């Protein structure tokens, strides 16, 4: 598949430009190309073609000189991202270079970026949950942030649409606040998870423990193979079993013959024509040659990732938009959200020493939100709520044994004790004070202003975290788990890698950046459909909602284009 069209530099006019090729950019490319638009996809990094460029997909630990550990130089290159604990040699090449791509942490903030075709869609956790009106109505009900301009009924058909193509495995539960998706068969729980599920659900009315809903195929779909339970997803899946732009949406866009993807393209700004009252194109810097090139299009989809999209908008100034494209309200860059994370409990499970499992399941269990659903579950300590992810497995740490020598070594080769953990993901309120801005005094090596990130958890998130830990300890203890250790390791935002907001949708141009179909106020032919557009953060993982919002906006864009409204 020849993605890189060498004519890209000669041809400068397209019907549409998509900035970014991650989860939302891939969907924008697919939808626009399939509707017949000649589409230029601008990718900041290199091309990573499905299977062909998955360099590490079959590596074993001993294939690496350091068994996967990063050298001192590599650790330095990932000195910010490495704080999440994800760094290893098999995916090191897929995480952005923190030294070459600096940002300023006004307060501690982990910003994990992936600068290659597919972006973080190669690396994501694949947990996929629909949002509900509990989420879309939350701001309006408690007064934080502004009201979402859409409700569940607006997005529901688009959830179904993207789920059928992406392939989501899971089991229906019938909860109104966690609507069921269009499911492929669910993955299995192991025996300990089944046992603990029964105990937790028996003890705590209204709480459920389910297998995670994930963008992994459990049956073949559209020529993609099903999951082989290798759990080497992030390196790229040779079977195409999990959803990524590389394996799913970009090949579909390519198949139309309408897509040109241009790598090494750093978008400097979106070009706005004051007389026409709309955007006319995009200015890029070739990261390899430093050449500045302008591309023209009728519509522009900004899908660079939440903070990068906002960075581009802030850097796109004109007479009409002096403070950044779409910043009439002054809200561009504000209301940054993430999910709290790494707060929960872990312990040892007895009574299952004779059981084990086969296969490395790239999924765990999920405990849907059970607080602040209604009057009966209302808390007076915090607003909104959380869900838990977790799982059981045989682990333990032999290094902790106070023995050594022959029998220690032979025991260590046997399966370890069963352990079970849950960790909460709590909703973050949209605070105006949590913001990003351009730092014009600190330029990157392409001479571009870098981003300064100034955000921290509020008292509501901290209060939720306290309860997450208390409830986690209580649930594990009640389920008979031993040596339960409660923990709260959430020290800084960004760790959840669920950045949302900074160019929020809203009903009123005076208080929002985007309208109800993701069009920039004052630049109706520019659409922002990645995490930047989010008006609130829910407590469930956002990627599925990005997919649905993008497909919906692309449909609207082409419809408006055909009516000559753009």
């Amino acid at each position: 598949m020849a993605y890189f069209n060498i004519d890209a530099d000669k041809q400068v006019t397209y019907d549409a430009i998509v900035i970014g090729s991650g989860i939302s950019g891939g969907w924008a490319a697919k939808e626009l190309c399939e509707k017949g638009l000649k589409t230029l996809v601008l990718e900041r990094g290199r091309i990573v073609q499905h299977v062909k460029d998955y360099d590490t997909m079959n590596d074993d630990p001993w294939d690496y000189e350091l068994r996967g550990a990063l050298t001192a130089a590599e650790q330095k290159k990932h000195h910010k991202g490495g704080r999440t604990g994800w760094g290893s040699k098999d995916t090191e090449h897929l995480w952005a270079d923190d030294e070459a791509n600096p940002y300023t942490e006004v307060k501690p903030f982990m910003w994990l970026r992936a600068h290659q075709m597919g972006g973080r869609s190669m690396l994501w956790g694949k947990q996929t949950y629909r949002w509900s009106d509990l989420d879309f109505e939350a701001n309006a009900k408690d007064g934080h942030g502004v009201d979402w301009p859409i409700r569940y009924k607006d997005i529901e058909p688009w959830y179904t649409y993207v789920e059928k193509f992406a392939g989501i495995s899971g089991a229906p539960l019938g909860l109104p606040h966690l609507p069921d998706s269009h499911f492929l068969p669910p993955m299995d729980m192991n025996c300990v998870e089944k046992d603990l599920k029964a105990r937790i659900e028996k003890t705590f009315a209204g709480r459920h423990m389910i297998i995670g809903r994930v963008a992994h195929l459990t049956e073949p779909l559209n020529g993609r193979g099903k999951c082989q339970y290798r759990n080497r997803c992030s390196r790229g899946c040779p079977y195409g079993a999990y959803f990524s732009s590389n394996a799913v949406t970009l090949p579909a866009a390519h198949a139309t013959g309408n897509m040109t993807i241009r790598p090494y393209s750093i978008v400097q700004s979106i070009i706005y024509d004051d007389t026409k009252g709309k955007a006319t194109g995009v200015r890029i810097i070739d990261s390899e040659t430093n050449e500045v090139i302008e591309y023209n299009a009728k519509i522009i989809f900004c899908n660079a990732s939440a903070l990068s999209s906002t960075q581009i908008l802030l850097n796109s100034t004109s007479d009409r938009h002096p403070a950044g494209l779409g910043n009439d309200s002054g809200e561009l860059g504000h209301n940054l959200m993430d999910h709290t994370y790494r707060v929960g409990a872990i312990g040892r499970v007895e009574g299952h020493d004779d059981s084990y499992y086969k296969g490395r399941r790239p999924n765990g269990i999920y405990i849907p939100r059970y607080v602040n659903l209604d009057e009966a579950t209302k808390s007076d300590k915090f607003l909104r709520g959380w869900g838990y992810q977790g799982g059981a497995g045989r682990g333990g740490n032999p290094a902790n044994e106070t023995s050594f020598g022959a029998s220690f070594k032979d025991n260590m080769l046997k399966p370890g004790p069963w352990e079970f953990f849950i960790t909460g993901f709590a909703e973050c309120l949209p605070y105006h004070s949590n913001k990003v801005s351009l730092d014009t005094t600190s330029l990157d090596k392409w001479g571009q202003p870098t981003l300064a990130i100034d955000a921290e958890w509020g008292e509501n998130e901290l209060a939720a975290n306290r309860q997450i830990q208390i409830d986690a300890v209580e649930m594990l203890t009640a389920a008979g788990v031993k040596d339960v250790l409660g923990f709260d390791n959430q020290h800084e935002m960004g760790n959840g890698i669920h950045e949302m907001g900074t160019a929020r949708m809203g009903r009123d141009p005076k208080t929002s950046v985007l309208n109800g179909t993701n069009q920039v106020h004052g630049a109706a032919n520019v659409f922002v459909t990645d995490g930047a557009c989010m008006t609130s953060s829910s407590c469930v993982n956002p990627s599925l909602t990005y997919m649905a919002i993008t497909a919906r906006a692309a449909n609207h864009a082409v419809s408006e284009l055909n009516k000559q409204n753009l």
Partner: protein
Amino acid sequence: MDRRKALRQTSWLAGAAITGPAILSLLQSCQSASRLDWQPTFLSNDEAEFIAAIVDTILPRTETPGALDVGVDIFIDKLWAQTSDEAGQAQVRSDIAAFDATCKQAYGSAFAKCSPEDQHKALEVAEANAGTFNPGVWGKAVGVQKPVGFYRSLKSTAIWAYITSEEIGKNVLNYDPIPGGYDGCIAVDSVGNKWSL
């Protein structure tokens, strides 16, 4: 002793059901001569001898290969050479020196030169004094992780180096690169050793 030969002998010994005391004498014969037959990158020869002796005491050869059979000592030298910054490397050197100083005081010689009995005593003391690792979730320790000290940290590194070696990962643990499916409930007896990956 030639490392490759040792590995082959181990495979041959696998069927012979040799247990504790015989293995110990085998180790002693291995250790009686200075056995550094490779050139360390980061460690001094004395430090390399220390690492070899301590990982061999923690993970000796039994029916399965020991730490030295799969080059754990050589790997640790390479690991520290390439992954530690200057401060980390200086810390390791001073930790080794401190461990040896304790051994000299208690048993009259550096750890590598101690008798197997004294080496066992030294590790029993080290075990009793070392902290423990908190459990981990998704690549990071949870809760407040107190320092575990040099010995526990080295033991952990040695175990990791051992189980990620090709010999152990492929031939001793259960190597199943493409499981094909997930069965959440099987009898542990049907598997034997734990999964490798």
